[in-house]
């Protein structure tokens, strides 16, 4: 069986994981056009080579990211989302608006 290393739980059978799709940086929802939102939500790059993907370790519901070579199916590394998300989206939303 294939194995995947979860940043929280360690090396586990691939049957313990759920694939969550390609990672794309979240657009700024205040400024992004509808077209770009549709691109972000519905369209994927399907790159042949190194990609970043979302994976979930199902027994612990732990979401993380994996760099994977789609040509060789080699997982380069796995890492936690805080490497890419440095601030909470909720905090961003509740930030008081400044008047010009």
């Amino acid at each position, binding site marked *: 069986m294939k194995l995947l290393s979860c940043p929280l739980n360690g090396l586990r*059978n691939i*049957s313990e994981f759920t694939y969550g799709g390609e990672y794309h940086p979240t657009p700024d929802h205040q400024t992004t056009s509808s077209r770009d939102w549709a691109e972000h939500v519905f369209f994927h790059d399907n790159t042949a080579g190194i990609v970043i993907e979302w994976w979930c370790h199902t027994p612990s519901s732990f979401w993380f990211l994996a760099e994977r070579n789609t040509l060789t199916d080699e997982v380069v590394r796995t890492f936690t989302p805080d490497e890419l998300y440095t601030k909470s989206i909720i905090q961003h939303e509740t930030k008081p608006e400044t008047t010009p």
Partner: protein
Amino acid sequence: MTKQETNIIAPTLATRRSPLYRRHLQYQAHFKQVGDNIVVDSYPNEGAINDEIEIAKSMGLCDLSTLDRTGFKGVGTPQWLASQSFKVPVLANTAEEQSSQSLLIKLSAQEILVLSDLLFLSEDVKRLYQKAVENHQSYDQQIYNLPRNDSHCWLAVTGINATELFSKLCAVDLRSHKFVQGAVAQTSLAKTNAIIIRHDLNKTPCFYILSDISGAEFLWDCLLDAMSEFHGAPVGLSALQTLASNQ
């Protein structure tokens, strides 16, 4: 309390009953009431409670689903629990027994599970639940309560042969020298998701299992089936309490 007295108590009388109470009735289990909880005291067997203790020392399966448990999640959860005088494990996937004998399990950097003790000495779970209700607005609102009483069943596999059983059902190496006291594995057990916690009853190896409550009967049957070749059997809480209290 004699077995005759304990058997008068029916699990259906309790406000909250174990998802496995039908299985226990099939086994003609003797029940007892401890506080608000009705638990299996023992199962009928030829001998006395000592026989069940011997089974538990070898390979036993106990239903702890009516015992209290709760959880908390969100940024700042470990710090909040530490401020409540709890010893919080440093590493994720480790468990720490409290001075009150309740068990604190760190499931991830910001998620904690709290299990009550087998001897019903600790009020930690009730106290924390009450605190969470009372202080809902006052503590950091990013911390939220995850009630576990109705989401997860709670089983215990005990005995020196327990790891033989797990080698049939689980891909994680749970042998004693690899999966030490206080270790936690969130993994697949008999094709169902489970949290497995090593928490020995003095010298007797003990593994707590928390799994989706809707699959409790499935998991119970799987475990009993898998342990049959090792002569494992269900045991009541009294056997575990004896093992936990014997120094």
